[in-house]
């Protein structure tokens, strides 16, 4: 039997639910040399800001048990360079819908980025990152209160016709209230979770491993937290959820969808296994067969 892997995000049809998470796939060009990236459902490109950013000092990376901490700090060439250089390069290699991941340090910056990306045809979804733990005065600050998350959502919705997904932070006391605030402010969908704020100390040198001291913890270790939050939010909101956080296998993707995700992003696993997304997509039909799933979309939120 042919297994149906397709899914839909706000009318955007995806051949399968697997999407490399922002920041773990660059702008796709490097990965196109590794395998045919057209097998992916979509790509969420590297978090982009209005102006180019070098990001944080190194070391930016720390190893953890079943995961890692990064403190890249939104290094990117800026929205205009992304539109003029990165997207044309990606278009040559990728013919599926693209998710534009946008970050900012003020509401004006978010809206200006979204306004500029709005005319890019292949960008079918805008993912607004209000959850970056690695920059001060912005990023996660917008995603840690319902009011500010709603303010960003409403402002962005006013300047684009594309579906807007708000990418939420797990570093909050009540993710449901923030998710609902985004939904009420007009968000078309939600992506969760971004990384968890973490820290490692080099006990021989008696100092933080990461130059910026703290960073975003990701990888397999955060998977149960992500499943829990996706479950809570999917049950509290009507808009679709993209599940993200610690996904490493086809079974993880199925679990995330059963929790309520309409699509699944794969993040840190790409860094240790460049073939992670490809292997998950290839394994999904086998896992579906074993579990008696004909159409993947039938299991979205099936666990109550």
């Amino acid at each position, binding site marked *: 039997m042919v297994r149906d892997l397709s899914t839909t995000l706000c009318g955007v049809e995806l051949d399968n639910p697997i999407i490399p998470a922002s920041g773990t796939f*660059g702008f796709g060009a490097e990965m196109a040399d590794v395998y045919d990236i057209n097998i992916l459902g979509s790509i969420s490109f590297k978090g982009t800001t209005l102006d180019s950013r070098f990001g944080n000092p*190194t070391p*930016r990376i720390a190893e953890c048990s079943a995961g890692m901490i*990064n403190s890249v700090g939104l290094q990117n060439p800026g929205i205009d360079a992304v539109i003029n250089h990165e997207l044309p390069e990606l278009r040559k290699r990728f013919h599926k819908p693209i998710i534009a991941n946008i970050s900012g340090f003020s509401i004006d910056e978010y809206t200006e980025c979204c306004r500029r990306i709005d005319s890019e045809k292949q960008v079918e979804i805008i993912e607004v990152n209000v959850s970056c733990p690695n920059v001060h005065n912005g990023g996660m600050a917008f995603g840690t209160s319902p009011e500010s998350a709603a303010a960003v959502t409403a402002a962005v919705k006013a300047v684009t016709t594309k579906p807007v997904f708000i990418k939420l932070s797990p570093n909050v006391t009540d993710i449901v209230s923030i998710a609902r605030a985004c939904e009420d402010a007009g968000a078309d969908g939600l992506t969760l979770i971004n990384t968890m704020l973490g820290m490692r100390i080099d006990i021989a040198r008696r100092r933080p491993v990461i130059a910026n001291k703290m960073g975003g913890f990701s990888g397999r270790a955060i998977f149960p937290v992500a499943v829990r939050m996706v479950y809570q939010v999917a049950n509290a909101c009507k808009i679709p959820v993209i599940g993200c956080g610690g996904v490493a296998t086809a079974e993880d993707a199925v679990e995330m969808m059963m929790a309520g995700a309409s699509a699944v992003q794969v993040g840190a696993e790409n860094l*240790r296994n460049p073939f992670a997304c490809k292997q998950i997509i290839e394994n999904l039909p086998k896992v579906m067969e074993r579990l008696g799933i004909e159409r993947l979309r039938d299991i979205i939120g099936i666990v109550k």
Partner: protein
Amino acid sequence: MKHVVFEIVSNRALTDSVYEMVLAGDTSAITRPGQFVELSLEGLFLRRPISVCNYDEGKLTLIYKVVGKGTEQMAHLTQGTKIDALTGLGNGFNDETKCNAPLLVGGGVGVPPLYRLTRNLIAKGKQVTVVLGFNTAAEIFYREQFEALGAKVIVATADGSYGVKGFVTDAIKESGAKADYFYSCGPLPMLRALTTALDIDGEISLEERMGCGFGICMGCSIMTTAGAKRVCKEGPVFKKEEIVW
């Protein structure tokens, strides 16, 4: 980049903390000296980047120093063990420059990538001088191997227990070696002192803590005179003038 499962042919200690691991497997993705491989190790989330010391068809030599959990685990691996690796990573040394008398300067575990470079340069008929810097005589490795390639080898030890007493820069000055190009890999203070001391063009291999090792995570970015670059992708080898000290 290529994904290859290697098999360990040998894994032996060269000094108290430095080991040489010879692997059998497909090396076709490695195109230049100075590139690196990334090894997947049991129980560790991120792969570990290790510079390539030497490569031939079906055979790869790595030299590594035990500095943490990853390299500690490597030191205990035995012959016949399979290792999952990504190979042919990074942009290595350019061995096709027009120089005639290159000077290769390695400090500590910065020495290994210079081995295959020396081999290539000698094969091209260059007069190669290799300067190896260590802290003390007990830490010296691969001196004979460099000599066997036909290079003029000068060793410096910080404590004077072997060769020239002092740093590689002292050894270069003392030897009066005439060079028209340099290649170097080693600790940052050494690279900086060397770049200041030499008024010839050259290439430097840098080290940085990496996330992916193949250019997608921006974990190892440095600011160069030509903008932000990734040590794992545009590097680890950079032209002298690109480095911002």
